[in-house]
């Protein structure tokens, strides 16, 4: 069926291409254009947040205060976290969903194209506003990306109000994006594309979208309560007025824990597409993969207080959250076992996307191990709020979420641009990133266990050695990302012609379209057998 479809469309349906000039990008309702906007925006935010991380690591290269003062250091850790979570990782996944979901399910576009345009264009304004707080009197938000009250309310700089407004805008954008993904997947599937035939990337995004719709309003709620406390005399989180600072943490983490799965489930989907392709073998345990993602999503609502083991929860609460958290290891384990079983007795090749996917499996699993350690509540009293936690979540987010996004980019870029990537450059980028990421984050386990708290601009002398190692790694990792930028631009501008299938072992509807994919994906539904 599929291979000839793309060419035929050009004749039977007048295939109007993109508008010209800046208007194409401002007014576009095309899923590919919007996907492109999201991805470039995310890359810009990644480099911005990364620059802040390098400033942090430069200050931490040696004990003593060298480059920045503590108040600015706190603004950097806060902005780095917020930008990476809300500006880099989440928009990148939405961008990938935009590009891929219609092509994977055999649809012409997203279900709600105008809303799609709006949900993207809110973001640059939200982040412009948030970043502008750096130039305000009193400085940018300085209370950490978790913005615990009352540090973020009674004791916050005046710019907190802009931060709250920016978070509201990001939330609206995410919710609209999620509604769009759900509407598209549920309504626009090609005939024969039953739910249990959906590619795993689509499944993982469907579940992620429900998580987003469930928790973004909670985030909006908690920042609104802050706003009320700051400007309208309420005392939700103000103990002096009878409020409860711990309530803030419960509400925040009820959003925050599902949020971390929002940042990893689409990664699971991506890896589940890439590994079978380069193992030339079907994904092992497709159905159990779907159930595992669904159970992780459900459990993610029951574990929020494992971020709060030291706030003084009652014993029963500690035990409940410890057990529930340990339970998440089971479906997560299933996923890793399935990926390994997919590789087992396959016929493996190691193109750049596969290298990133393999690194994902190993390093994400290491992040999962430290997560399992953190779940053990008594031990968490020693780990909590130390660099051990910093190491843990950077392992799941950098070689986890970010590597998956890079793997996806290298994997689908030939389909998007019609050019193959430069494998040599891709591999150099991979190896530098792989080495850099480990030099940066592995020593953080050590300093954390040795007793170094997180979010401090200066530290005791016994932490000095590993901190300088981590800083060297951070600069290697950071500057290697310029290669990524180079590789992407080079692939857009030229390179060997990509075939429709691109990769020998590729399966799925997107590979039946021509490369580069036509402006409108499937104007007539393909038939899925």
């Amino acid at each position, binding site marked *: 069926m599929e291979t000839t479809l793309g060419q035929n469309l050009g004749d039977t349906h007048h295939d109007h291409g993109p508008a010209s000039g800046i208007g194409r990008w401002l007014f576009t309702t095309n899923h590919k254009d919007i996907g492109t906007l999201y991805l470039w925006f995310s890359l810009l935010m990644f480099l911005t947040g990364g620059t802040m991380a390098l400033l942090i690591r430069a200050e931490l290269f040696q004990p003593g205060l060298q480059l920045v003062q503590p108040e600015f250091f706190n603004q950097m850790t806060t902005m780095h976290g917020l930008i990476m979570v809300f500006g880099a990782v989440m928009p990148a996944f939405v961008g990938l969903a935009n590009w891929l979901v219609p092509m994977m399910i055999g649809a012409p576009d997203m279900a709600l194209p105008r809303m799609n345009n709006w949900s993207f264009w809110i973001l640059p304004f939200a982040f412009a506003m948030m970043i502008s707080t750096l130039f305000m009197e009193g400085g940018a938000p300085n209370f950490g990306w978790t913005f615990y009250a*009352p540090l973020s309310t009674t004791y916050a700089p005046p710019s907190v109000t802009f931060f709250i407004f920016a978070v509201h805008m990001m939330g609206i954008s995410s919710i609209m994006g999620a509604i769009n993904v759900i509407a598209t997947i549920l309504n626009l599937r090609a005939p024969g594309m039953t739910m249990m035939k959906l590619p795993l990337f689509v499944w993982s995004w469907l579940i992620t979208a429900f998580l987003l719709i469930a928790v973004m309003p909670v985030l909006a709620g908690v920042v609104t309560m802050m706003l009320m406390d700051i400007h309208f005399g309420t005392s939700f989180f103000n*103990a002096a007025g009878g409020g409860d600072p711990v309530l803030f943490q419960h509400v925040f983490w009820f959003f925050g824990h599902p949020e971390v799965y929002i940042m990893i489930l689409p990664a699971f989907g991506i890896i589940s597409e890439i590994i079978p392709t380069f193992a030339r073998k079907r994904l092992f345990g497709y159905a159990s993969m779907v159930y595992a993602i669904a159970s992780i999503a459900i459990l993610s609502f029951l574990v929020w207080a494992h971020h709060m083991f030291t706030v003084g929860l009652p014993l029963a609460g500690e035990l409940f959250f*410890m057990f529930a958290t340990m339970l998440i290891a089971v479906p997560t384990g299933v996923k890793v076992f399935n990926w*390994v079983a*997919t590789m087992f007795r396959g016929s493996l090749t190691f193109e750049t996307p596969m290298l990133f996917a393999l690194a994902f499996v190993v390093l994400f699993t290491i992040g999962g191990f430290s997560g399992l350690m953190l779940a053990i509540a008594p031990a968490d009293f020693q780990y909590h709020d130390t660099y051990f936690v910093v190491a843990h979540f950077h392992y799941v987010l950098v070689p986890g979420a970010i590597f998956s996004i890079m793997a996806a980019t290298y994997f689908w870029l030939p389909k998007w641009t019609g050019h193959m990537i430069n494998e040599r450059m891709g591999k150099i980028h991979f190896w530098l990133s792989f080495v850099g990421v480990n030099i940066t984050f592995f020593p953080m386990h050590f300093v954390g266990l040795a007793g170094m708290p997180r979010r401090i601009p200066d530290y005791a002398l016994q932490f000095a050695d590993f901190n300088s190692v981590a800083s060297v790694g951070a600069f290697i990792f950071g500057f290697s990302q310029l290669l990524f930028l180079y590789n992407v631009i080079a692939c857009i501008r030229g390179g060997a012609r990509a075939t429709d299938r691109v990769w020998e072992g590729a399966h799925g509807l997107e590979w039946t379209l021509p490369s580069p994919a036509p402006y409108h994906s499937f104007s007539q539904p393909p038939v899925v057998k």
Partner: protein
Amino acid sequence: MTKRIWLLPWIGFLVSLPAAAAWQVNLSPGHTAIARDIHDLHMIIFWVCVAIGVVVFGVMFWSILHHRKSKGAEAHHFHENTVVEILWTLIPFGILIAMAVPATATLIRMYDSTEADLDVQITGYQWKWRYQYLGQDIDYFSVLSTPREQINNEEEKGEHYLLEVDNPLVLPAGKKVRFLLTSNDVIHSWWVPSFAVKKDAIPGFVNEAWVIPEEPGIYRGQCTELCGKDHGFMPVVVEVKPQEEFDQWLADAKAAAAEQAASAEQEWTLEQLMQRGEQVYNTSCAACHQASGQGVPGAFPALAGSPITTGDIDAHIDIVLHGKAGTAMQAFGSQLNAVDLAAVITFERNAWGNDTGDSVSPQQIAERNQ
């Protein structure tokens, strides 16, 4: 040969590594029974993870080495196996239950803070700790004592850089001490790794934790909850003494408190007040208002030339005594004694070119602090 010259600094760096200070990579076992239990749990779960990692990564690397296309490997076509899938769901589940049992037991013991021999209330302030020995009339603050010059790299850093304070918490060895933790402003967290005690100090809440310190010695930790600008500069230092020495310390501390109270009655000259005021200012106020009196724009007001420090004395005394609700300015009336308050206010009115010539007496403070 010359091309390799760039390697030299790297070789130097690598050679110097083993010689450099501590490359501690693991949790230390600690100095209490609970800390050792936690350390054991940590090691068990660590080895469990290593074992699972060896199996999973083993299979993965085996496939990477042997099932590669370049070696002529053909893909097999299995893609599910119910038995295997059930097994690798159930086995991890079993391991987790085996882990949960000792973890639960340890947690239950950690939560048993009954039958304490001594109660100490610990209050977090931006950026210092207050220790109050309940029923003992002992009440003091503990502030970082590392000199600014070391932090700013103008002096060589001492052995306990950033982990040293003026007045450590003093505890008797072998006794069960219960901590009651709370906060005066934002959330802090009181952590001593050797005791495995970490508990958040939260405004409006009183949290409990406890320790039976085993051996006399000095134990160091830090605040672990981001609490604003100087979060990295509020260490915890605990000095554990044998019982007799502890009793002696207790008696001395009470005597010193009585002496302090008496000094409020005596006459203080402007010069004496200025001298003492400068010390008080540097420990209690400079973190926010800065040693220069210039403050931090947008966060902490300048005191040099401010209408309050150069204007009405009573308004000045009032803000220092009662603080300003809803801001970081604390009520120092309940933190400092009358002499220190008089001294610091006098200092502020005459330093940095304020030159009002005013002198505030401890008696004046006591009157307004009714």
